[in-house]
């Protein structure tokens, strides 16, 4: 595993001057992923969203590699087209260099509107890496719920109202859906653990065929936590087992991190404004239900990973 000392010597390919919010998780995530692609020629594809809008405002681009944005729902198809062009031109000797292909999409562009395009690209076996920057809502349009939005979250289209306390449905398990595609590599990671992100990005870039990484990439505006606390909040997502770190390599599930003790979900929810309403007296049952959801998902994951399905000691 490379050290930060070594990694900091790699050329920066997502430069400052982009217009993401101060403290945006996407800037951190993208830097980590491209850092892992050190030395390779890279073409980045990007779905419409905060990242794309903020990083390529004509006539400025924050990308030091080739970049294409097409539309919201088609990052998967677009990057597979570029990869097909690469195969064709390479075969004919028109392109000499080797290339890696990385597509970035937010959870809206990946879990929801772009799911079909992503699924198609994965099923067809293109040699690409798709990275979902999951910040659990449509942030670009102003914090609307997506299928990645967790139960109970207050968003502008799942507002915590007098009758309905935030989003009512459990979040979609996209990483598992991608694993069901039986592609060489699927992983879930979070930026609090940069080694984990780095290792998984490396693996994804190295495997032959499609790879998918789901990264928890917080949004201070949408989650309403104190902006500098991004690493802490992400860590709480992992420690509370809300966002487990795991990978599926050629069909084999593996848990990458097991919290030592039982951290209740409140710890993750409490610092975030989007869950504030859950802490009003009388709403205890809502938090309890979220905890039950987290626990049952955790147990199912342990089972898939061949681990003993038990909760950490309280």
């Amino acid at each position, binding site marked *: 595993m490379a050290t930060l000392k070594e990694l900091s010597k790699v050329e920066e390919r997502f430069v400052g001057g982009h217009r993401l919010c101060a403290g945006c998780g996407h800037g951190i995530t993208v830097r980590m992923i491209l850092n892992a692609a050190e030395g390779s*020629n890279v*073409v980045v*594809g990007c779905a419409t969203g905060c990242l*794309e*809008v903020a990083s*390529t*405002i*004509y*006539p400025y*681009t924050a*990308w*030091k*590699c*080739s*970049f*294409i*944005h*097409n*539309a919201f*729902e*088609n990052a*998967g*198809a*677009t*990057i*597979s*087209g*570029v*990869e*097909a*062009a*690469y*195969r*064709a*031109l390479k*075969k*004919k000797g*028109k*392109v*000499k*260099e080797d*290339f890696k292909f990385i597509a970035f999409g937010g959870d809206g562009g990946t879990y929801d509107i772009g799911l*079909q*395009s992503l*699924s*198609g*690209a994965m*099923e*067809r076996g293109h040699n690409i890496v798709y990275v979902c920057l999951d910040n659990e809502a449509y942030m670009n349009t102003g914090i609307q719920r997506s299928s990645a939005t967790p139960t109970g979250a207050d968003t502008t289209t799942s507002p915590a109202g007098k009758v309905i306390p935030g989003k009512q449905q459990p979040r979609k398990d996209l990483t598992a859906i991608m694993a069901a595609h039986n592609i060489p590599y699927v992983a879930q990671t979070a930026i609090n653990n940069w080694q984990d992100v780095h290792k998984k990005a490396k693996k994804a870039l190295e495997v032959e065929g499609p790879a998918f990484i789901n990264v928890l990439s917080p949004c201070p505006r949408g989650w309403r936590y104190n902006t500098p606390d991004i690493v802490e909040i992400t860590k709480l997502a992992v420690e509370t087992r809300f966002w487990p770190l795991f990978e599926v390599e050629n069909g084999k599930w593996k848990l990458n991190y097991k919290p030592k003790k039982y951290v209740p979900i409140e710890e993750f929810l409490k610092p975030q404004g989007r869950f504030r309403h859950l802490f009003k007296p009388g709403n205890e049952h809502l938090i309890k239900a979220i905890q039950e959801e987290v626990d049952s998902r955790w147990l199912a994951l342990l089972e898939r990973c061949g681990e003993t399905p038990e909760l950490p000691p309280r």
Partner: protein
Amino acid sequence: MKTKVALTGNEAVAQAMKQINPDVVAAYPITPQTEIVQIFSSFVANGEVDTEFVAVESEHSAMSAAIGAAAGGARAMTATSSQGLALMFEVVYIAASLRLPIVFPVVNRALSGPINIHCDHSDAMGLRDSGVIQLFSENAQEAYDNMIQAVRIAEHPDVRLPVMVNMDGFITSHAMDVLEVLDDETVKNFVGTYVPEDYLLDAQNPISMGNFDMYDFYFEHKRQQVEAMKAAKEVIKEVGKEFAKISGREYGLIESYKLEDADVAVVVLNSAAGTAKGVADELRAKGIKAGVLKPRVYRPFPQEEIREALKGVKAVAVMDRAETFSTCGGPMFADIRNTLYDLKNDIKVVNYIYGLGGRDLRLEHVQQVFEDLENIRKTGRVDETVKYLGLRE
């Protein structure tokens, strides 16, 4: 070398694609285009082309992947019809604005609903303002010829735009027709190799494409697209002349049939133009000076050529195989009437909507149109500007 063969329109188009041998084809099946995808897949499976065939999961992805491929520096194609084109709608605009020379046949079919699989032009007309070049084909021969020329038009440095090659669903796509095909070598030489100017896979020169364009630049980039469309008119003519050298068949922006001395004329796209020409011949034999104008190119719109061709005519009927629901007639009617306005010579222009959802256009329908035109010419009176042909009223 030219060979006479009997092929359906779909086969002819697939044949052209095989001879063009593009780098990437991304496509999805839809009636009545499906055969093109099937036949082309077999060329890929049998190693008759070097193409990377991407069997996508939807037409939206077909055009999206074609965009990715073309942006990557490849000669890319797709093919579709009707609902498929409608699903592509969003990305066709993007292909045009990114100035990617994607060639794609469209087998014209009615749009739902109610669902219908037969021919009309509502699919193509829905994208007439998307910034793609639209060629129309009367028969399998023209579809084949248009496909080959489309590559050169699309890739011309002054143009760099997608080209949509239209032919009538079932009427042309599924009907066996006799046509002349060129040999592989001739086509290969004619289309040449694609040399992209700027593309994603240029390792030395990374590029950002599809960027966020605010009000400070978007308008200027749209103006550039208009210029490319203007340039396309000249390029289409040049390519048509060059194509004549290898095929003996010359193509311009329009086909003008017996219009030099015509009193009455019909303007019509695609296969119906053949029917109209037949009727015009019959009427000529009876002493009626009838003519036909068939736009080969609908976008960019060949306004000057059409004005010139129709300037001596007294009454014109524009036949549209699509509705606009403006309640003021079909799409081409608006364009033609606008074109003739500047002549200030009182040409009467009327509109006939015909053939929606594959409703047959028969000789007597066209005869009726010419008869109406003769009446208008004689009386100078138009009773109804927009009429429906073959509709139970």
